[in-house]
């Protein structure tokens, strides 16, 4: 894990925009988180092509502002649930980069002991309650975690991230209805990156905004946010979280964004119209946010300091994960049951 920057202490600024409701500390954190996600995912991509990561991976390049904005607004004891495109949402909870890359590489240091891989990243201690690889499954599961928080009056909330494709599966509709009738403290976040795997979401959905246009069916407000603007995401998150914590029930938020890469490692995304990617690259959340920090008066050396420290942390985690041995073979036979074993007979 990267060392926390001390930039805000050494370079205070009096800029009113910087010290608004979001504040400098949160902004620097969001910039750092976006960079961590970007560089970890690019590193995962590179390691794939060195044959050091097997299986598949689903990158969220271009979508970093959503996980970073929500992640910054969360309490450490809140729960998050995400999909197989879940490197970002797991990382923003503060999980170890080494354990994450180690899992992707199938190493002993992997966060799941080499038994889950890219699509199942989980760090229960950090509240990252799992990455779910069957579309829709985690929406009702997140409702269940919220039910626990409601039942025990813990003040926790559950946040559930999913893609636009999820809005057309039954579990989405079951979960929303269920969360509303039980007033559960859960926030559903649809990351609309315009493509359901290889198919434009607009070609397979009855409404223009796949999540927001369905909200009214469950008595919920229709909420759309610019998913490439971490500040906008943070603000919408704070509002929804306050509502959930104060007994106001669930929210459904649609964050508009774009996936710079294909659906998975195997997908070169040739189905995209010419020029579309280039248009969205102009709205890349990270350079945009960097410029905003500078415009708001953050010093270039502070920004550069964050960038250097993230890069160093990713490099360090990569080397540590590479150096880790493969998982001991006995790991294959553990953790089926609560007793740690796998026996099904006497």
């Amino acid at each position, binding site marked *: 894990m990267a060392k926390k920057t001390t930039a805000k202490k050494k370079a205070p600024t009096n800029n009113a925009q910087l010290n608004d409701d979001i504040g400098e500390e949160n902004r620097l954190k969001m910039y750092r988180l976006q960079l961590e996600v970007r560089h970890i995912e690019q590193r995962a991509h590179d390691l794939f092509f060195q044959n050091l990561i097997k299986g598949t991976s689903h990158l969220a390049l271009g979508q970093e502002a959503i996980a970073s904005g929500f992640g910054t607004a969360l309490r450490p004891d809140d*729960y998050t*649930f995400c999909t197989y495109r879940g490197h970002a949402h797991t990382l923003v909870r503060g999980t170890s980069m080494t354990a994450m890359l180690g899992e992707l590489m199938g190493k002993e240091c*992997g*966060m*799941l*002991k*080499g*038994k*889950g891989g890219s699509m*199942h990243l*989980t*760090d*229960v*201690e950090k509240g990252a*309650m*799992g990455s*779910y690889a*069957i579309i*829709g*499954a*985690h*929406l*009702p*599961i*997140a*409702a*269940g*975690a*919220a*039910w*626990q*928080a409601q*039942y*025990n009056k813990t003040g926790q909330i*559950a946040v559930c991230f999913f893609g636009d494709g999820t809005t057309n599966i*039954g*579990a989405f509709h*079951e*979960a929303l*209805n*269920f969360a509303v*009738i*039980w007033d559960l403290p859960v926030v559903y976040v649809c990351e609309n990156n315009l493509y359901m795997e290889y198919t434009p979401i607009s070609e397979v959905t009855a409404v223009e905004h796949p999540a927001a246009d369905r909200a009214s069916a469950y008595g919920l407000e229709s909420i759309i946010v610019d998913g490439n603007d971490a500040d906008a995401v943070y603000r919408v998150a704070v509002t929804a979280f306050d509502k959930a914590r104060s007994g106001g029930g669930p929210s459904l938020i649609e964050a508009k964004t774009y996936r710079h890469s294909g659906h998975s490692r195997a997908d070169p995304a040739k189905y995209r119209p010419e020029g579309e990617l280039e248009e969205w690259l102009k709205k890349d959340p990270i350079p945009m946010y960097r410029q905003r920090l500078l415009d708001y008066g953050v010093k270039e050396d502070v920004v550069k300091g964050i960038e250097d420290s993230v890069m160093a942390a990713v490099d360090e985690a990569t080397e540590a994960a590479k150096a880790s041995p493969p998982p001991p073979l006995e*790991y294959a036979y*553990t*953790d*089926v*049951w*609560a*007793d*740690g074993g*796998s*026996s*099904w*007979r*006497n």
Partner: protein
Amino acid sequence: MAELIYREAVAEAIAQEMRRDESVVFLGEDIAKAGGVFKATVGLWEEFGDLRVRDTPISEQAILGAAMGAAMTGLKPIAEIMFSDFLAVCWDIICNQMAKSRYMTGGQVDMPLVIRTANGGGARFGAQHSQSLENWAMMIPGLKVVAPSTPADVKGLLAAAIRDPDPVIFFEQKSLYATKGEVPDGEHIEEIGKAKVVRDGDDVTLIALAMMVPRALEAAERLQAEAGISASVVDVRSLVPLDTQTILSEVRKTARVVTVEENPRLCGWGAEISSIIAEECFYDLDMPIVRITSPHIPLASADELEDIMIPSVDRIFETVRQEVD
């Protein structure tokens, strides 16, 4: 000892566990105010209230997903799926999520929950409300599978399932809901993973589950009286974990074995048990292993048709008499 009806034993077990543990909660369709469509949960809502006994919409994925999320974060939910046939609409949550999450996360995730469901035929409900589906659950690593045949086992094994730290699918046989039996007074809890020899015999072992247990017992009485055949009857009770020690010990003693299964033929639980017997005590056997099952056909609804499909006392009696002679 008090005499209880099978369906009453369900509510007694849940009440017993809810009284001792605040983290036990119960959800499902019509389970609270209506007391369940099979009247197996009468009185629970009145005693434990809205927060712990909750009616749900007809949303099986939401029911089981909510149970799972609650279990992962510290509650001990009991979820009812009204008919086991409906497991098909929420099977993802069971077989991909509940069963695998602990393993896939390297042991990080806990899953202390119970899915109760009304299973099996005999009620003329037709092919979508009568299936005997315990083998579906048995073949998924990570699920415990229990199917009681008596009110005492309903209470003791359901209580044990609720206390169990792993996901348990608890199959209640809907045609047994009205049956009576003695149940020990006070707190009653059994151990999951133990088969029970419910009738001693020397000539043949009948291995049965759920509704097939009383039928095997009745057939055994007739075999003794009408054919002089002494049959041992083993109630398997739990398919996972499977008590192979008790089963193999009875088989070695009698040297003949017949499984009595309500499920359709292919991949029924008896096939797995037969394979274990064949591998581990083949040379103790005096005759080939025999499986009595429902035919590999969707279950029909008319009295006469359903009755010829599900193994009856007559069929068990005739089959065993012919094979053992």
